[in-house]
């Protein structure tokens, strides 16, 4: 049996709302209370230097402070390496096929390693097209791609600058030391 949702009826103003003042005073007292509470906290913290008081704001000053990222956050991609330093990607084109945005372009080459048939000689990722769905990570049979590079300032000076090539995706793992504090990356070094 389908459970019926209770649809909220349209708001009918009563006499309190119609004469405005009681409801206006109620609203003003809420915001006024916030003002008094936060101002008191500001005064204690910045005039009397009592830093143990709860701060009167919830703002995080972004470029200087960053909030801790969720451990399951889908961040920018990076490519993984094997223990011997070769790329893990075997150019099976799973990610390129599943990608709903068509943002991955792989050029395969034959591998010298007899255990591996192919490897990606070119691996381009167009971040302008990417929708960060994470399907490529799900699809990868080799765990060659992960989305855990904690660079939140994804910006470029041109469209071309937003297309990341194989070298960048491989090398940027080392750069993520910068963001070690926010995202507890277990593998800062790539292997």
């Amino acid at each position: 049996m389908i459970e019926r949702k209770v649809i909220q009826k349209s708001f009918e103003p009563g006499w309190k709302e119609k004469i405005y003042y009681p409801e206006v005073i109620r609203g003003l007292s809420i915001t006024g209370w916030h003002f008094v509470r936060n101002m008191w906290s500001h005064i204690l913290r910045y005039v009397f230097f009592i830093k143990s008081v709860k701060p009167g704001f919830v703002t995080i000053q972004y470029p200087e402070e960053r909030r801790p990222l969720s451990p399951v956050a889908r961040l920018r991609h990076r490519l993984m390496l094997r223990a011997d330093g070769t790329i893990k990607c075997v150019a099976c084109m799973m990610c390129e096929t599943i990608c709903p945005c068509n943002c991955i372009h792989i050029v395969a080459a034959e591998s010298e390693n007899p255990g591996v048939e192919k490897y990606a000689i070119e691996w381009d990722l167009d971040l302008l097209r990417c929708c960060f769905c994470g399907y490529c990570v799900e699809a990868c049979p080799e765990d060659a791609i992960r989305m855990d590079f904690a660079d939140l300032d994804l910006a470029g000076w041109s469209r071309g600058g937003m297309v990341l090539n194989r070298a960048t995706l491989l090398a940027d793992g080392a750069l993520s030391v910068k963001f070690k504090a926010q995202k507890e990356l277990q593998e800062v070094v790539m292997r």
Partner: protein
Amino acid sequence: MVLDIVIILVKIWFVLVLALTMAAALMWAERKQSAVMQDRIGANRANIFGFKALGFVNIMADAVKMIVKEDWIPPKANKTLHTIAPIAAFFPVLLVFAVIPFGDTLRIGAKEIPLQILNINMGILFLFAFASLSVYGIILAGWSSNNKFSMLGGIRGCSQMISYELIVGLALIGLFMVFGTLKLDSIVRQQNELLFGFIPKWGIMVQPLGFLLFLPAALAETKRVPFDLPEGESEIIGFNTEYSSMKFGMFFMGEFMEVTLIAALLTTLFFGGYNIPYLYQQGFVFPVGGEIPLPHLVVVILQFCSFMCKLLFFCWFQQLVRWTLPRFRYDQLMNLSWKQLLPLTLLNILLTGLVLTLVG
């Protein structure tokens, strides 16, 4: 004679500085107070060599931006009226400050200096006359911009301000019936008397309904948020869309000066002006007995501080209202004015008349 002129010039200078400084301070307060109310920090990025001055540098940056920005007049706009409009919105508000008494008469030797630029019989009428002139600023700005949205904004502003001008006037009639004068100076003086021997005879005590009716109408006159239909910056496009640089700045500053003006008016008419309860010329005299004699200069300074405190409080209060309430819809605005406030103001006049006849 020269001394008199110098005194008047000093007073004019003081009031000008007060009005313009308050406009800048309110711009700062607008950002910081709203931030404190909403658990934020507010403008804190602009700095001079890392010196942020609690966000005051943002105001300086704003001023610099407005002054050096290109002053653009739309093609086919009426250039003369387009230039006159900001002045017409800005100037009357500044002029009205002349009749506000910001302190009692100051006596230095034999010289008596009333702390008010213009003490005229028709004080409050002067105020209404010039305050209502700023409607021209809005309608001219809307009409001369050669932009249909600006024009509609101007028309909305015009009708709103005329509707509420009426309420402001009628809501104060009860007050004039009680005090029997239009002179702001003597209205304030009478508010220092006591009702029943202990309640200060402030306007709000003798005209509570008048205050409740005057307040929303006065807020509507400032064209700020619960009543910001003329401007409607986010979705319904306002009358000053085609203005840039300091011409827009004048509308902006005019709005903040109106906030100061309304705060000064609320103080003067309903909250005893510069008076402190039980403080007279010779010092404090309490109705329960006991008095604290004070020298004349101390009394005047106390009264001036009292006026400024009340002024700042009402500026704060208006910012509180501006950052709490959502905007009225246009029909709600008109219904509030003509169907709710107007009959109540008339009722207030009737009640005041009845009480005055029965009591007095």
